[in-house]
C-alpha cells in the first residue's frame, strides 16, 4: 500500500497516508483500537472500498483502479474471513464451502475433492450436513475460514476471526490460520486481541486513527519450522489455558 488515504463521505477519515508492504508467505497481525481503520484497510484490499488517494498493489497490480468487472476475479484470489462470518444461512456446511468453488466454475469432481479437504483442515468434517445456525460461534468461524481457503488463494485476510470467541476457541482458529500460512499462503489477521498477538510472535502492524503507529517485524525469535501442534501447545501454555487440546 502506498500512501493510501480513505475519507468517508461525511469527512470521517478511515485511513491516512498508510504505506506498508506485506511479502509473500508472511503472517501479519493488524492491531489497533476500535475505529482505527483496520476494517477499512481490509475493505480496500478486497475493493469493497476504493481509497480516496494512493495505491493498493496486490501482486504488482493497482486494484484501486481495477474495473468493476474484474473485481470478482480479484476476490477469488483473496480468501476473506469476516468478523460476522458472512455465511449463507440457507446452505449447509458443505454447500457454503462449495459455493466458493462454484463461483469460479470448478467442476463437480473438483468440488467433491476439495471441499472435504478444507472441512477436514478446520475440523468440521463431521458436520457437513449442518446449517450455519446449528453451529457454535467457533464452528461458524472455522467454516468461514474453510470457505476462504478452499480454492487455496495466495492471500488470506481475516477480519477479527477471534472477535467473539473464548480464548480456547481462539487458539483453535489461530492454529488453523497458522497451518494455512505454512502452506505458503500470505495471511493477514486483523484483531484487537493483544494477548494473542503477543504470544503468536509474528509481525505486528498497529494502526491508530487511520495511521500506522507501529510496524514491528517479529518472527526472528520464533523458529519458523515450529509445527502446528507445537505452535498450539506453546500458545496454550503461554496464555495459561487449561484442558484438552481440541482435536482438529
Amino acid at each position, binding site marked *: 500500500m502506498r500512501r493510501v488515504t480513505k475519507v468517508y463521505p461525511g469527512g470521517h477519515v478511515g485511513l491516512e497516508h498508510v504505506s506498508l508492504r506485506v511479502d509473500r508467505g508472511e503472517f501479519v497481525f493488524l492491531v489497533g483500537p476500535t475505529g482505527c481503520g483496520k476494517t477499512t484497510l481490509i475493505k480496500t484490499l478486497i475493493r469493497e472500498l476504493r481509497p480516496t488517494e494512493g495505491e493498493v498493489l496486490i501482486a504488482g497490480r493497482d486494484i484501486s483502479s481495477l474495473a*468493476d468487472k474484474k473485481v*470478482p*476475479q480479484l*476476490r477469488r484470489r483473496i480468501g476473506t474471513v469476516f468478523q460476522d462470518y*458472512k455465511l*449463507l444461512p*440457507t446452505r449447509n456446511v458443505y454447500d457454503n464451502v462449495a459455493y466458493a468453488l462454484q*463461483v469460479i466454475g470448478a*467442476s*463437480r469432481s473438483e468440488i467433491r475433492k476439495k471441499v472435504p479437504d478444507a472441512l477436514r483442515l478446520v475440523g468440521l468434517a463431521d458436520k457437513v450436513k449442518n446449517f450455519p445456525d446449528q453451529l457454535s460461534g467457533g464452528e461458524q468461524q472455522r467454516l468461514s475460514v474453510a470457505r476462504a481457503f478452499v480454492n487455496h488463494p495466495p492471500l488470506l485476510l481475516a477480519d477479527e476471526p477471534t472477535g467473539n470467541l473464548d480464548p480456547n476457541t481462539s487458539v483453535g482458529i489461530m492454529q488453523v490460520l497458522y497451518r494455512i500460512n505454512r502452506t505458503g499462503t500470505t495471511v493477514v489477521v486483523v484483531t484487537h486481541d493483544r494477548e494473542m498477538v503477543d504470544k503468536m510472535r509474528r509481525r505486528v502492524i498497529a494502526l491508530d486513527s487511520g495511521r500506522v503507529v507501529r510496524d514491528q517485524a517479529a518472527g526472528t525469535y520464533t523458529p519458523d519450522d515450529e509445527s502446528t501442534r507445537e505452535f498450539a501447545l506453546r500458545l496454550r501454555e503461554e496464555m495459561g489455558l487449561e484442558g484438552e487440546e481440541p482435536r482438529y
Partner: protein
Amino acid sequence: MGRVFFFIREGLRALRRSAAPSLAAIVTVCITVLLLGVLIPVLQTTNGKTNQVRDQVGLRVFLNDVNGQQAPQDQIGALQAKLQAIPHVKQVTFVDKNQALSILSERLKQDNRTDITAQLPGAHNPLPASFNVTPDDLSNLGSVRSAITPPGTSGQPTPISPLISDIGDSRDDASKISGATSAIRWVLGVISGLLLVASLLLVANTIRLSIYARRREVEVMRLVGATNWFIRWPFMVEGLVCGLVGAGIAIGFLFLGKQVIVDPLANNFNLISSGHTIPFASLALVLLCVAMGVSAMGSGLTLRRFLKI
C-alpha cells in the same frame, strides 16, 4: 451446460427455501393474468360488436301502395335494379307487405301483444312494402340517401321513383349504438391499462421484497467473488418459475371459466358468441410468455440495486 443446470438447481432451491415470498409472487402473477385473461376477450368482443352493428345499419325505402295493393312486380323489379345501381350500395333486399306483417306479428308476439295484430281487418294489411338498402360502409349512408332522393327542380329532395313514399334511416340508432360501444371500449381500455400498470408494479414490488429479504445472501455471494450474472441467473430462474406457475394456475381458472360459464351462455347470447375474440390457446400462450418475461425481468432488474460493487 453444467452451469445452466447449476442455475436452475439454485433457482429451485431458493424457491423451496423462501416459500412465503415466492407464494406471494405467484399469487400476484396469477391474479394479474386472470384479470388480463378476462379483459382481453371482453375488449375484443366489444370491438367486434361495434363492427357488427355498423354492418347492420342501412336505409329502409318504403313504397306506396297502388289502390290499397302492393305495386306491380315489374315496377318493383325496376326500382330494385335502380337502387342496386347506386354507388356504395352493397345489398338491396325486398320486404313485401306480408313479410312486413309477419315480422311485426313476430315482434309483438315476443312482447305478448298479439291482440294488436288480431284487431287488424282480415283483408287489409296497412303495412307498406319496403327495400332494405345496405351501404358498403356506414359513412356512405348519407351519399346513398341523397342518391335515392336527389334535389328536384324545386330544390326539394325528390325520390327517384314515384313508388317511393318515405325513407327510414337507422343512422341515429347506429350512431347511438356505436357511440355507446366505443365509450365502453374506452372505459374498458383505460381500466385494463391501469390494471396492467398496477399489476406490473405489484409483481415488481413482490419480487423486490423477496430479494430484499435475501440481500445479505447476495452480499456474501459478491464478497466470495461471484460475478453479477452468476448471482443474477438463479434469481431470474426463480422469477421465471413464479411467472410460469402463477400464469399456469390463472390459465387453468380461465379455461374452467370458459368451459363452465362462457361456453354455455354463448349458445343463448349473441353478444358473447362473437367470432372476433382471440382463440383460447393463443391467449394462454401470450399470457404465459408475458407473465414469465415480466417476472424474470423484474427479478433481474431489482437485483441491480444490490449488485453495486
